[in-house]
């Protein structure tokens, strides 16, 4: 037995002392004259006292009062015992709802088993306890706020379902701790039902909260697609990489089935030893576009990681309008890309629209004030709707830095470029500086209102940039970034739980998304690309809008989730939490029985006093 408030035990010393002193003090008694005290002599020999302070006598009443006082002081010290079930004032149950909790090594599944255990905790709640239920996957959801109603809690837990997303337990614990902070003096109790497939949280400050970890899961017998990616080169050749890993303790043989647009494309027989990683590559995909799906024909613990999809952009022409009074370098660079279909104009044509051109290049010719949606490359000029404002001119500026991570400037070396003159820019809030000169940015990019811009502040003819190796790469990058990806574009599949960026036509104001489970969700388009975050299901998501339809895929592709071997010990807040196994032990406060016992003792004392026992 431990005490939540052990210092209160000190109260017993002064209070017990006071009770004893009251007994030591001479009692004011009623005076009765009797004929003789001779017969009382033997009877009162041990009871008489003449001094102000009498010797402490054996007294049942004193003993009972001391016992009652001791019980009350014990109750004030709030004793508790470790007992099965929960008896805290505030309980937070965190159910790991990540993909690995779908593993079927527990019956009916890990998540189902965890739900049953959580329901047991609900049933063992004390009358004054309140519980909050939350799930932790990529997103943390509070499915039931603090309540003492067991029926409501049971109903909320019963409705829960696992996701195909990785686990973000840190976020869940931070939210749980912030919800329980300062609600009462008693330390809260956090119970985590999980297979432990989350990173170390030892740096997370948990304060006085008591943490219980219930391990869910017994073994790992899983083979997974741990990676799925596609790549294409300038010649249009596309490759698909498929990463496989055997997380089980035995050798597993299975078929890897490749589908292109739901039509079987290839079957490969695989056999992986325990822990073996294998990379498969599909190279003969020339001219293939659409969805490429990889499936493992295997019966293992986790189904969510047995398939994945990736999209290959259909090779198509990019219509480019070059508005220039003549620039052989840019013209050659655009023609170099086999995807481009170049149109040249000396002046801004009247009524350019997005339907006509995917990318418009303004070379030293100012674009009109209002531009329709589309991609625009501004060379040596600026636009009112562009990503940056011109602040001033600089002569012979040197390039100081460039963003190597942005798709537009990736693989391009700007360091050796010499410029005769350039304007320096001030990016707008939605613009990004890609190349920095001595006095400010010289190349900026940004997307706003369906328009994408790359703005160069210098004239190509007044620099040696066209002569550098990086120039055609830069132009190709610009075309890739500025041209809409088109139907089936977006070669990388999104990860479950991570937001998907959906390009929609600028005219589209509302889209509907049907997730792999068949649930339809309507979204109002306020910006492009549309950010869609409810991607907790692995599979294909269909996006529909007015005169517009496309799809994207979300894959689990998480080695951490696919490794279904549960962890016995997790590290949270500097503590090593060992699993409580099947039973959750918590602090069960014992003060109510003590108070009732003290009342019983006091009642008996009252009875004894009046019966003169």
């Amino acid at each position, binding site marked *: 037995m431990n005490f939540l408030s052990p210092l209160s035990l000190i109260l017993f010393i002064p209070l017990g002392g006071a009770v004893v002193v009251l007994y030591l003090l*001479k*009692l004011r*008694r*009623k*005076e*009765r*004259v*009797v*004929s*003789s*005290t*001779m*017969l*009382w*002599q*033997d*009877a*009162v020999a041990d*009871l*008489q*006292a*003449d001094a102000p302070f009498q010797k402490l006598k054996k007294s049942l009443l004193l003993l009972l009062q001391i016992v009652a006082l001791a019980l009350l002081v014990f109750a004030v010290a709030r004793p508790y015992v470790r007992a099965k079930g929960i008896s805290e004032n505030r309980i937070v149950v965190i159910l790991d709802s990540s993909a690995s909790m779908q593993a079927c090594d527990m019956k009916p599944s890990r998540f189902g088993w965890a739900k049953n255990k959580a329901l047991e905790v609900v049933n063992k709640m004390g009358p004054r306890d309140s519980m909050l239920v939350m799930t932790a996957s990529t997103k943390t959801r509070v499915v039931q706020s603090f309540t003492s109603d067991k029926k409501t809690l049971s109903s909320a837990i019963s409705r829960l379902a696992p996701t195909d997303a990785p686990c973000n337990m840190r976020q869940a614990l931070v939210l749980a701790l912030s919800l329980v902070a300062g609600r009462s003096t008693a330390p809260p109790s956090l119970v985590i039902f999980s297979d432990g497939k989350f990173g170390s949280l030892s740096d997370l400050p948990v304060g006085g909260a008591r943490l219980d970890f219930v391990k869910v899961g017994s073994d790992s017998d899983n083979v997974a697609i741990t990676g799925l990616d596609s790549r294409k080169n300038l010649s249009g050749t596309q490759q698909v990489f498929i990463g496989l890993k055997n997380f089980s303790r035995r050798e597993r043989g299975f078929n890897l089935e490749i589908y292109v647009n739901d039509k079987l494309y290839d079957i490969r027989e695989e056999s992986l030893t325990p822990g073996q990683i294998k990379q498969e590559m599909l190279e003969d995909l020339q001219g293939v576009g659409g969805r490429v799906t990889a499936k493992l024909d295997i019966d293992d613990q986790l189904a969510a990681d047995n398939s994945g999809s990736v999209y290959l952009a259909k090779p198509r022409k990019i219509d480019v309008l070059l508005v220039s009074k003549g620039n052989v370098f840019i013209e050659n660079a655009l023609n170099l890309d086999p995807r481009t279909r170049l149109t040249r104009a000396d002046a801004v044509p009247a009524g350019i629209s997005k339907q006509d051109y995917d990318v418009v290049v303004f070379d030293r010719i100012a674009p009109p004030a209002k531009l329709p949606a589309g991609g625009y490359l501004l060379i040596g000029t600026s636009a009112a709707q562009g990503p940056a404002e011109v602040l001033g001119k600089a002569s012979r500026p040197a390039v100081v830095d460039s963003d190597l991570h942005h798709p537009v400037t990736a693989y391009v070396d700007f360091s050796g470029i010499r410029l005769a003159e350039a304007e320096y820019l001030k990016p707008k809030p939605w613009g990004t500086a890609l190349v920095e000169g001595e006095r400010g940015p010289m190349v900026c990019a940004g997307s706003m209102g369906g328009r994408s811009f790359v703005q160069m502040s210098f004239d190509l003819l007044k620099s040696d940039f066209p002569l550098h190796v990086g120039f055609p790469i830069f132009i190709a990058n610009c075309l890739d970034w500025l041209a809409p990806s088109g139907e089936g574009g977006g070669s990388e599949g999104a990860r479950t739980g991570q937001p998907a960026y959906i390009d929609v036509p600028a005219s589209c104001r509302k889209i509907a998304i049907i997730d792999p489970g068949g649930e339809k969700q309507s979204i109002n388009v306020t910006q492009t690309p549309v950010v869609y975050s409810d991607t907790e299901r692995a599979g294909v998501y269909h996006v529909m809008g007015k005169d517009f339809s496309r799809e994207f895929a979300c894959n689990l592709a998480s080695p951490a989730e696919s490794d279904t071997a549960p962890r016995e010990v997790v590290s949270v807040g500097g503590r090593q939490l060992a699993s409580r196994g099947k039973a959750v032990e918590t602090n069960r406060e014992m003060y109510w029985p003590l108070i009732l016992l003290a009342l019983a003792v006091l009642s008996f004392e009252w009875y004894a006093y009046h*019966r*003169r*026992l």
Partner: protein
Amino acid sequence: MTQQSEELLTPDFLRKIEHLSLVAKRVFAGQMRGERRSTKRGASVEFADYRNYTAGDDFRRVDWNVYARLEKLFMKLFVEEEDLHVYILIDVSRSMEFGEPSKLLYAKQIAAALSYIGLCNLDRVGLAALAGPSISLLSPKRGKQAAFGVFDWLSNVQAAGETDLAACVRDFSLRTAQPGIVIVLSDFLSTTYQQALITLLSRKFEPVILHILDHNEVEPPLVGDLLLVDSETGERREVTITQTLLRKYQQRLANFFVEIESFSTRYGCSYVRVTNDAPFEDLILGYLRQRALLK
């Protein structure tokens, strides 16, 4: 009869007890002729014994019939009847003031009744009030007419002080030469009562112990935290009276009764214990006759 004596005994009750007499286990020598058999041989009509004639004997008591048969002179002896000395000792310590009626009043009524019975039977009745280490003595009276004086004396007896039974009885025995029945009326709440009774026995008195108790002493109606004050000594004792303590008191009281009864049995004393809630007339007319103290 005075008003004070009327408080003790009513005329009707006096008439009822006139025919009673005190019973003495032993035969005592008296002073005057009376109605009690004496240890002396005398002139009554009741034959007692024969003895040889010696020169100088009264010829009138020679049994001539025996002389005719045996030709020897034998003297006829007759039982002498004399008066009996009855002493009534009343404990008048403050402890006797307790009870409703008070033990002292109860004792005075008993004393008055026994005195009247004795006086009616031509016994010599003396009374003594045992107060403090000394006594207040009423010299033995004889004859029914002395009853008024006895009653008056009893009426004037007041409770006072602490009784030392041994000292009082020693004083009484020194001042009283003639042996007889000594009726001691007391609550015997004294540590020296045995010594007192032994003193009486050693002086050839026949003690009759009338142990008078208040019914509240037998079953004390006390409870709670009390300060008990001894009425005689003023001694104060703090007690918390519980059921346990009351049981201890009852045990102590029972032991006290056993002790005094054993003492009486061993020394041949008559012992009668009464409580003041017993009707007085029933005590005299019934209980004392049953116990053969009166006939």
